[in-house]
């Protein structure tokens, strides 16, 4: 993809190192992904409404996994409180569309913007803690948001609210529109994180992940970069929350602020491969496929989710995508030096 002017090596050896990103695999993979997205985009003409509703769930998982990976895999911040922003996104959509009267499709990005605006000042509190205490701190913040929301009568207090703003659209179209919107959001989020990680900020984040002190002494503004990641991840989780509510047409404080979302995000990222762009997408797919077979298990379903997360963390910390051992990169973020002979 990008080709830099490589310095000449010692004259006469005849080998010129080429520094590049990606390569054939990335081009082929990229073309494959475009094809997959095109097929997914055409699906509403082919499959039932129920399948489309299911697939919106998959797209939400992709967004959630990608955002959690951005936080933990690239930013080094383990949050178990992202359900705060999932909830604000979901409730934001309902409030904007029902009470304020904004178009529901426009409400989705606005709700995400609200999440970012909440996350910005919140980060100043959360960043006073680090490591494991940061994790519990984010959880407390999510609990505070949940407790505050259950006091607000305008959004149904403890019992939740329904989204009726779509009622003017025929269900056939509504489901297809929500499907396309969700597919679009998932693509934008994954490609957005990819472009972010290729940027200067991405390089800074990688440096911070590997060694914050060294990064700081090399001139990386560590806190600023982390704060930006936290705000972006909040907005992304808000998008996912709005997608979930647009899909199910119902929001309840007990479920949208559930810490189960944190467990699912951990599972998706850890099993797919933390610290890679491809991992969370793969993990979301695995979780989505497992969901059906695990649905009969009742509570054992989350036991399996937790158990697999432990096993993968300890035994195969690079996850499923790690099995490629870096040979295949659909989303190359680093540079490779290839010596042509």
């Amino acid at each position, binding site marked *: 993809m990008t080709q830099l002017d490589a310095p000449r090596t010692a004259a006469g050896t005849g080998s010129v190192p080429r520094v590049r990103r990606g390569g054939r695999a990335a081009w082929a993979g990229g073309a494959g992904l475009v094809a997959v997205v095109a097929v997914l985009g055409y699906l509403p003409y082919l499959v039932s409404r129920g399948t489309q509703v299911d697939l919106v769930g998959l797209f939400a998982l992709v967004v959630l996994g990608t955002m959690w990976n951005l936080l933990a895999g690239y930013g080094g911040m383990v949050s178990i409180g992202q359900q705060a922003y999932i909830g604000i996104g979901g409730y934001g959509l309902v409030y904007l569309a029902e009470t304020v009267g904004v178009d529901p499709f426009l409400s989705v990005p606005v709700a995400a913007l609200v999440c970012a605006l909440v996350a910005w000042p919140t980060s100043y509190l959360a960043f006073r803690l680090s490591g*494991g205490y940061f994790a519990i701190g984010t959880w*407390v913040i999510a609990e505070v948001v949940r407790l*505050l929301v259950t006091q607000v009568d305008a959004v149904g207090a403890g019992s939740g609210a329904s989204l009726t703003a779509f009622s003017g659209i025929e269900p056939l179209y509504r489901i297809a529109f929500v499907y396309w919107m969700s597919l679009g959001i998932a693509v934008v989020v994954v490609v957005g994180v990819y472009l972010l990680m290729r940027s200067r900020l991405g390089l800074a984040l990688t440096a911070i992940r590997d060694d914050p002190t060294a990064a700081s002494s090399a001139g990386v503004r560590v806190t600023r970069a982390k704060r930006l990641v936290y705000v972006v991840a909040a907005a992304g989780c808000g998008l996912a929350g709005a997608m979930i509510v647009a899909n199910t047409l119902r929001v309840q404080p007990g479920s949208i602020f559930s810490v189960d979302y*944190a467990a699912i995000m951990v599972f998706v990222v850890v099993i797919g491969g933390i610290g890679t762009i491809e991992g969370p997408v793969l993990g979301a797919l695995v979780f989505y496929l497992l969901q059906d077979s695990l649905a009969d298990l009742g509570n054992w379903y989350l036991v399996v989710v937790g158990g697999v*997360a432990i096993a993968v963390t300890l035994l195969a910390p690079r996850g499923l995508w790690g099995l490629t051992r870096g040979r295949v990169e659909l989303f190359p973020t680093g540079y490779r030096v290839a010596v042509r002979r």
Partner: protein
Amino acid sequence: MSWVNAVVQGVLLGGLYALVAAGLSLVFGVMRIVNLAHGVLAVVAAYGALVLGRALGLHPFLALLLVVPAMAAIGYLLQRGLLDRALRGGELAPLLVTFGLAIVLQNVLLEAFSADNQRLSVGALGTSGVRIADGLSIGWFPLLAALTGVAVIAGLGRFLARTRTGRAMRAASDDPEAARLMGVDDRRIYAVATALALATVAVAGVFLGARSTFDPAAGATTLIFAFEAVVIGGLGSLWGTLAGGIVLGVAQGLGAAVDPAYGVLAGHLVFLAVLAVKPRGLFPSAVTA
């Protein structure tokens, strides 16, 4: 008078929060692990006492004689089996593993005992107390729970300060490699620390389970309250944690006196206020342990 009562009950509750928090602090102090399964483990102990009460008719306090050693053994094995491995896996691994463990344990409890509320019965002790004035009385059981919290914290402090194992723990906390050179088996020390932490959390779980109702999801709030007590008090100070627990308990008591729905929220808000104004806690220790 109801305000005075709220404060008094809050102080007593704070002792119990400090008891839960002591184990969390110990594990963090020695191994730098934040055990996200800490709260669920307290609930596991409460269910353990419940099962012993049902099967053998044991009073919860007698059940402690079995539950505490059992939890300590679980802690030892947990450290040896899972957490030692997780410690070698970098910074994120212990968090992911203990969070996974919390999810697993909570849902196993849910499957075994359903989501019904349970309560450990301590007999007449649970309802009797001493009346100090109109609208102000101190229950014997909350008092006993608070005093147990103080006793455990004092005992833990003495253990760390005076005993050979306690000294080894502080050494392994400060510099594991230097401790190894001095002949300290740091992996054994870690396992002993986790066992000790789980023994204290077992006591805390049984007292919590007798003080109010619990269900498999109660681990979440238990962990959060313990954590808030630690942060309000200041990291690395056991007596600070006790003070933090009392501040949290009083905040919850006063909040609940305004409106029962505000109790927990008031505690969270005080925690966030401390984080904003005094991020090192109200009673920071001179040396971070």
